C-alpha cells in the first residue's frame, strides 16, 4: 500500500468532498487526509502535529512552571523567551492550517495535488524545537572561547611539561643548637674551594606558639655564605633532628637570597617553628643550609611523561591480551553460531539460537559498561579492562567468524573430496584457505578496536592510560593530560593505519 505507483494513486477517489476534508483536518489534523484515502500521509501528519504541540507545551511549561493557569504560563513564557515562543506558536498554527489546506487539495476530485510544503514546515518546526531542547548557544560558544584557548594550547602542545631540568646543586650548611647551652657548637670548618656558610649565633630558640596560638618568633640568625655561584638565587633549607628537611618560609614566602659578584651573601633568618615531640629531651642539633642550583646539566623525563609511557604500554597490552583471548575463545563460539554447521538436528539448532542470542546481548552492551561491571567484580585496574574487552571481543568476533564460516564456498570442498583426499586434507585445502583472509582481517580489526577502546576504559577504572588522563583532567593539570592525549592519538593513528594496511595486504 505504501509503494503505489502514480497511476494507481490517481484512481483512488476521496471518500468525502474536498471542503469536508479540509474542515475535518481542521478539527483533527490528518483526519481529512485519511478519509481522502491518503491513510499513511494522514497518520504521519497527525503524529507530527501531536509531537510538535506536545514538545512545545513541554518547553513552555519548563519556562514558566510556577504559574497557575495555562494562560499565565503562556504569558510568562512569552515574556521570558519571546524569540522562541512567538515563532513556534505562529509555526504551529500555520502547520495546523496547512494540514487542513492539504486535506482540501487532496480531496478535490479533478486535480489531486500532493504538495511537499507541509513536510518542509514540519521539518522547520522540529529543527527549531531541537535547537532549543539541545540548548545550542552559539553566543556562549563564541564569547567563552578565550577561556578555553590556553587550556587547549596546553593540551595541544604539552611537551614543556614532558621534561624536568636536572641541575647541579651546590650547598653548605651549619649546625644550630636548640636551646642554647654553655657549650654551643663551633662554626663549620672551611674547606678551600668549597662553598662555606656560617650562622651567628650557633644556638638559639625555635619559633613557638603561645597559648593563644600566636606565633612567637625564634632567635634571629645572621646567615652568611661565600664561595657560591655569583649573582644566583640560593634557597635556605632547615633540617630538624627528626630528619625532616624543608624550605624556610618567612611571612608566607620561601626565603631566598641573591649572591653578590663574589658569590657571597648575608641574610637574617628567624629560626622556624617546629613541633618537636616532648619525648626529645636536652639540647638538639638542627642544621641550616644554603642551596643553589648553579647550572642545568641535562633533561630528565617528567613524571607525567614516564607515567604516560608506562600506562600506554599497559593500554596496548590490555588491548592485545583481550584480542588474543577473544580470538581463542570466540573460535568455539563461532562454530556453535554457524548455521551451516549447526543445522543437523533440533538440539544443535536450539544451541545455535541460544548462542546467537547470548552473543547479541553481550555485543549490544558497550565495553564501557562491561568495564564498570568488571571493576565491581575484580577491582580497579587493567584486569577489569581486560575482562570487559575480552567479553565484548568474544561476542563480536564470534559473530564475524560465524558469518565467515556460513559464507564458505562448498565447491572447493567437493572438488578436494573428489580427488580422494581425507577429511584433514579437505580441511587444509578447501576450508582453511577460505577462512584465513576473513580470520586475519577480523582479528586485526578487533585488535585495532580493542586498543582504541582500552584507552578510554580507564575513565571508569579499567586501567590503562585513560585512568591517568581522567586523573590529570580532574587535577586541572592540562599539560600532563595533553601528554596522555598525544600518546592516545599517536597510538590510535598508528593502529588504524597498520590495521588497514595489514588487512589490505591479506585480503
Amino acid at each position, binding site marked *: 500500500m505504501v509503494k503505489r505507483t502514480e497511476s494507481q494513486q490517481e484512481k483512488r477517489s476521496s471518500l468525502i468532498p474536498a471542503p469536508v476534508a479540509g474542515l475535518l483536518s481542521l478539527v483533527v489534523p490528518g483526519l481529512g487526509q485519511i478519509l481522502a484515502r491518503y491513510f499513511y500521509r494522514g497518520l504521519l501528519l497527525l503524529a507530527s502535529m501531536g509531537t510538535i504541540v506536545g514538545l512545545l507545551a513541554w518547553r513552555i511549561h519548563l519556562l514558566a512552571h510556577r504559574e497557575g493557569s495555562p494562560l499565565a504560563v503562556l504569558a510568562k513564557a512569552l515574556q521570558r523567551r519571546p524569540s522562541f515562543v512567538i515563532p513556534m506558536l505562529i509555526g504551529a498554527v500555520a502547520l495546523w492550517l496547512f494540514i487542513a489546506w492539504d486535506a482540501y487539495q487532496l480531496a478535490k476530485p479533478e486535480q489531486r495535488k500532493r504538495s511537499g510544503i507541509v513536510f518542509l514546515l514540519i521539518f522547520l518546526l522540529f529543527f527549531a524545537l531541537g535547537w532549543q531542547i539541545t540548548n545550542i548557544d552559539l553566543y556562549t560558544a563564541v564569547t567563552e572561547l578565550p577561556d578555553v584557548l590556553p587550556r587547549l594550547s596546553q593540551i595541544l602542545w604539552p611537551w614543556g611539561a614532558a621534561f624536568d631540568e636536572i641541575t647541579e646543586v651546590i650547598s653548605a650548611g651549619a649546625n644550630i643548637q636548640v636551646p642554647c647551652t654553655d657549650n654551643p657548637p663551633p662554626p663549620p670548618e672551611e674547606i678551600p674551594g668549597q662553598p662555606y656558610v656560617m650562622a651567628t649565633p650557633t644556638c638559639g630558640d625555635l619559633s613557638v606558639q603561645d597559648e593563644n596560638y600566636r606565633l612567637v618568633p625564634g632567635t634571629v640568625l645572621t646567615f652568611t655564605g661565600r664561595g657560591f655561584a655569583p649573582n644566583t638565587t640560593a634557597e635556605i633549607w632547615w633540617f630538624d633532628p627528626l630528619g625532616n628537611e624543608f624550605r624556610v618560609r618567612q611571612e608566607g614566602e620561601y626565603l631566598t637570597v641573591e649572591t653578590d659578584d663574589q658569590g657571597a651573601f648575608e641574610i637574617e633568618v628567624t629560626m622556624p617553628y617546629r613541633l618537636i615531640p616532648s619525648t626529645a629531651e636536652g639540647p638538639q642539633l638542627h642544621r641550616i643550609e644554603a642551596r643553589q642550583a648553579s647550572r642545568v646539566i641535562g633533561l630528565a623525563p617528567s613524571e607525567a611523561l614516564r607515567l604516560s609511557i608506562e600506562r600506554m604500554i599497559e593500554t596496548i597490552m590490555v588491548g592485545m591480551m583481550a584480542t588474543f583471548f577473544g580470538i581463542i575463545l570466540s573460535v568455539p563460539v563461532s562454530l556453535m553460531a554457524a548455521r551451516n554447521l549447526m543445522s543437523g538436528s533440533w538440539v544443535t539448532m536450539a544451541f545455535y539460537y541460544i548462542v546467537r542470542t547470548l552473543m547479541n546481548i553481550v555485543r549490544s552492551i558497550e565495553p564501557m559498561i562491561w568495564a564498570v561491571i568488571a571493576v565491581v567484580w575484580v577491582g580497579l585496574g587493567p584486569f577489569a579492562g581486560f575482562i570487559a574487552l575480552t567479553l565484548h571481543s568474544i561476542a563480536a568476533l564470534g559473530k564475524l567468524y560465524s558469518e565467515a564460516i556460513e559464507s564458505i564456498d562448498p*565447491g572447493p570442498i*567437493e*572438488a578436494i573430496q*573428489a*580427488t580422494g*583426499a581425507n577429511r*584433514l*586434507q579437505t580441511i*587444509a585445502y578447501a576450508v582453511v584457505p577460505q577462512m*584465513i583472509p576473513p580470520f586475519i582481517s577480523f582479528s586485526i580489526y578487533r585488535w585495532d578496536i580493542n586498543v582504541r577502546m582500552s584507552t578510554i576504559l580507564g575513565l571508569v577504572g579499567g586501567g590503562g592510560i585513560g585512568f591517568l588522563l581522567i586523573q590529570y583532567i580532574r587535577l586541572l593539570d592540562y599539560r600532563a593530560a595533553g601528554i596522555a592525549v598525544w600518546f592516545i592519538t599517536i597510538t590510535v593513528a598508528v593502529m588504524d593505519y597498520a590495521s588497514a594496511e595489514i588487512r589490505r595486504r591479506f585480503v
Partner: protein
Amino acid sequence: MYPPSAIAGKEMLEVRNLTKIYDDGTVALRNISFTVEDGEFLVIIGLSGSGKSTLLRCINRLIEPTEGEIIWNGVNITQADAAQIRRIRREIGMIFQQFNLIKRSTVIINVLAGRLGYVNPWSSLVYRFPEQERAMAMRALERVGIADQAYKRADELSGGQQQRVGIARALMQQPRMILADEPVASLDPVLAHSILGYLEQLNKEGITILCSLHYLDLVQRYATRVIGLREGQIVYRGSRDDIRRMTDEEFREVYGAEAVRVSVGLEGGAA
C-alpha cells in the same frame, strides 16, 4: 603417464536401480539403470534440476545414494567404506561448472591437490609435495597449455584458464574416468569447444568421460553415447548416430514441451 587404453567395449561402470531422495523429500533420481563401457564419451542431457549433477555425484559418493548399486570395475561403490571410497575417488577425476579451484592458492597447488589421494597425507597438510609430483604437475599444466601461469593465484586466471586448471587437477589423479558436471556452462562457445576438445583428446587416450551438457550441438559433436534425464528418470538413450539424427520431438521429450532447439552461441533456450 596415463593408464593404457583398456580393451574397448569392456564394461566399466554399471548403475543399477539408482534412486536418490533428499532429506526434504525431493526425488532427484528414480530407479536409474545404465552401463558405461571403457573408453566411452557418455553425455547426460537434461534440464536444470533433472538430476544430472546428483547422478554424477552419486557415482563418486559425494552424494549418498538412497537405493541401488553402482559397480565400478567389479567393486560395489555404494558398499565401500571410507578408505575404499577414497581409493575409488582418486581414480575418478571430476570437473565442475564453477571450476571449484582453491581461489587464493597458486595454480600449481591447485593442480597438486589432485594428488592428495596418493601422497603422504601428513606432509601434504603443510603443502609439501615430492619433487616428482611437482614435475608431474608442470607436465599436466603443459598439456593444457598454461604452464606459464603455474605460480599465479588461481583467481587471477580467466574462466577458460581456470577450467584448464581443473582438467590438469583431474589429470593428476591418473584417472580411468572423468566426471564432468556442466564443464562449459560458465564459458563462452569458443572456450567451450576448446575445453571439450581437451576432454575428447583424453577420451581418445583411453579415459572414459561422463559429461553433462546443455547444448545439443555440443552433444552431437562430442558424445559417443547419450542419456537423457527428465525429472530423475532416463527418458532417452541414443548412440552417436542416433544423436546426429535426433529430431525435435525427441529433443522435446527430454527438455519438455516448451523447449526450443538452439544452437551454440545463443543464450538461454533449452536451459
